[in-house]
């Protein structure tokens, strides 16, 4: 559905995107994570046709997005910083979106009204709270019935109930219409619940891109209680982090966990080996540590 190939973007000599490659399948919920300044918002603005890349290509359904009206009709975008016209109320914005998106569903707009009971349709949106403005953005975006929904820090400012409600609406859209969602967020706990694919960005590149289950299965925390040193793992494994408190050693290992456990058990006498699952947040932290992203031990 979405293909980003070797995209490069510079701002006044600073390379914000340095050959980004990204692939999102139809109907996927793709979480884009990365540290501040990694280039997440920049690649999102390429996906929505706002920015023109210096090199590479950004395709949706096999077509370039930039300046392609027909492709953009299939994309809805909720940016991190929302914009509404001066004096505009929700009804006026609805009419505006209705005029621009041929697939806009007015009926659905009024059906969804019950999900957003606090929104006064005739009230100036700029006078609504940040969270309510976000609700309006979701409301309008969903009614556009897009094939691709792109969200940049989407639930920032929403209360927990509204977050859950919005995610459930989105999940239903994904399930019903195979809508593709690309979501950039720092709330990895939340992404873990909704995403099926994850891309980790750092320094203008997507360094890891795979399904969440693959990612979680491939990086594990192994705790070893043994006398002496933990045996060195063979080639094919990468120890992202290692620490010890007394005889208890903790290893974050990329590679098959079963093989790693077997190797450690065989190499260390009187050892107790335990494999613990890693959260997306932990995976992110360790992966980032592996690419010189400074991670302090106290985070562990």
């Amino acid at each position: 559905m979405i293909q980003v190939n070797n995209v490069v973007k510079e701002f006044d000599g600073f390379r914000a995107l340095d050959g980004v490659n990204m692939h999102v399948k139809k109907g996927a919920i793709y979480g884009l994570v990365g540290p501040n300044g990694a280039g997440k918002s920049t690649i999102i603005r390429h996906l929505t046709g706002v920015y023109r890349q210096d090199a590479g290509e950004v395709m949706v359904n096999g077509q370039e997005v930039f300046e392609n009206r027909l492709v953009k009709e299939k994309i809805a975008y909720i940016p991190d910083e929302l914009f509404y016209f001066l004096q505009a109320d929700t009804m006026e914005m609805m009419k505006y979106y209705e005029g621009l998106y041929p697939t806009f569903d007015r009926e659905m707009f009024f059906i969804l009204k019950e999900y957003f009971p606090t929104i006064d349709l005739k009230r100036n949106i700029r006078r609504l709270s940040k969270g309510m403005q976000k609700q309006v953005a979701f409301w309008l975006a969903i009614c556009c019935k897009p094939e691709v929904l792109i969200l940049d820090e989407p639930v920032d400012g929403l209360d927990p109930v509204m977050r859950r409600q919005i995610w459930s609406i989105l999940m239903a859209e994904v399930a019903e219409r195979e809508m593709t969602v690309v979501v950039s967020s720092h709330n990895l706990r939340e992404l873990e619940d909704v995403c099926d694919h994850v891309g980790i960005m750092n320094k203008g590149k997507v360094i890891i891109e795979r399904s969440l289950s693959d990612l979680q299965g491939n990086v594990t925390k192994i705790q070893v209680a043994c006398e002496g040193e933990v045996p060195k793992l063979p080639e094919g494994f990468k120890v992202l982090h290692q620490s010890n408190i007394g005889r208890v050693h903790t290893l974050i290992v990329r590679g098959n966990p079963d093989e790693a456990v077997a190797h450690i058990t065989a190499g260390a006498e009187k050892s107790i080996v335990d494999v613990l699952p890693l959260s997306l947040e932990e995976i992110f932290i360790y992966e980032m540590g592996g690419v010189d992203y400074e991670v302090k031990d106290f985070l562990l």
Partner: protein
Amino acid sequence: MKSKISFFNKTIFKKNVTLYWPIWGIYSLIVVIMQPGLVWLFNNMDYFSNGYADEMKFRDLMDTLRFENYVVLIAFAALLAGMALYSYMYNNKSANMIHSLPVDRTQLYGTTIISGLAFLIVPLFGAALLSTLLCLIYTIPGIGYVWLWFFVMAALAIIAFSIVSICALFTGHIVVLPMYVVAVNLLSWIVYYLISVVITTFGFGVTTLGSNAEDLAGVFCPIQCFNDNLSWAYHYSDTGELVDISLTGVEFLLLYLVLAVVFYAAAYVIYRKRKIEQAGDFLTVNWVKPIFRGVVGIFGAIFGAMLVREVLLDTRIGCGMPLFVCMLLIIGAICYFAADMFIKKSFHVFKKKNWLGCGVFSVVVLVAFFGMYALANKYENEVPKLADIEQAEIQLGYEITLYGEAAAPILEIQKDILAQADYIESRVSDGDRYYNMVRISYQLKDGDTITRRYALSQEDEKLNAIYKKIVLLEQDEENYLVNTFGKNYANITTFYGGSLEAYFINPEDREKEDYYPDKNYDSKNIDAVQAKEIYEAILADIKAGTLMKYNIYGGKYIYEEDVYTRGADKYYGSTEVHIMLDYLLSEDASDKKTNGSTSDKYYGDVVEDQEYVDYQRQRSVYLTIGPDCEHVINKLVELELVESVGHIWWGDAEELLK
């Protein structure tokens, strides 16, 4: 599949209309008040309750259609429209939002242009429509002119919005947009003054770049160009009846319409290439940035250095060329970096790469300055060919105008002055504050004018030869007569009268503060018949060459007798006698005073206001006479205005003349 090319989006247009309606409303109201509102008012004023002739109605209608009333309004409205309609590009949030929507830049740009033009033109159309209705209701002739006005105004709106559009695409900051629009409007004059300030400072005697250069600057200043050239020209028959009204300045309108098309196309190309992330930047077109830095730097360097030079000269510190060049480079560098700070919105511009750029810029500044300096030398030595001269003027005591080949003496005087240019300049720069300004100007056959102004020291024998040539021209009988009585002096038949005045100043009283006591002044009235006879006597004295020396400044350069102290410096003499005559120029006089614009004349002719016509031809002459003016003195005696030749000075002055 690529989307079809479309230049319009209904939803965005609707948004533009509904979002900015207050601006539309105020502008529409102003236009309606200024045009149909005034037409309605004129036709309902009590003032006209006694009858309002069709011709007067028409005249008032045409008054509301004067283009100069609307040029600034349209320009300002176009700027406001531009600031509103292009504002979505000047904020990251709005720029990102709008450009992520399913609408391409072609549609956005096209819709913005259509919105802007609708904003400006629809109210004009409404005004024209209302005026048409009023013309029908009040039977005012001239509906055709209302619609011609509308089309011209629509063209002005197209032009004004094109300038705003090109400026809007060059910046990413809403506050900078009006600055750019003003700069574009004034660019030609800024360039003109930049060159002018160098050339008039360093070119000896050069005061202007000539009328052609000024005209050119005026043409490329859109507001001035339309204000000056776009108007209704009234054509009258020999009997003074209005026969036709035509539109003037159409060629400028067409020129600017072509430019407007270029501006719209260029703005579109720039928009297509624009980076949305540049929202908030002062300048968004990368290739313009070095040009902007250079141009701001050059302007700042030259204007700044000239200003400091003036201060140094005023404070007598002096400013030679080496010091001036140093100032040019230092101020230029400051302006260069200031321009860079403006572009980058940062004070951190003193980087190695920028210093290199500044070095290149310094070379450009020097080339630009010395280029203008060379031009100043060219201007300084510019003496037109005699065959190219339509008319030439020289002024020391009074203005003398010579035509065609007869202008040779003025050319010769200018060449003499230029031959001593270094010496003349050195006298003034050495601090000689007693000098006379001699103005020489040429009207050339190609329409250009050349004007020079030379400061000649008053007491300098080396310059006497030049002074003598000028005073000889002033002494010329014909020149003097034309200057005194006008070109048609021979055809003067109507005199109103005049007065004879005498002052006596006791030499001992000269040093006193008040040496014009009333008792030493007397006057007598001259009636119309006497005035005509005295006029004839004056002509005779002028022909005899006995009157000019009392009235011409600089007589000392040609007369052995020192009449200088009795002429221009007359109050240092002892007795002065003056004659004042009031008369009317002949009807065919071409040098009658011009007063007011074409429409003023139209008023005058319609109401056949004789006072108005007389005012155009009324003149007074005030002359000093002296003992050598035999014809005049004899005439005064003959008319019994004075007792005898020996008693021409009367009252307290009588004793002195014995």
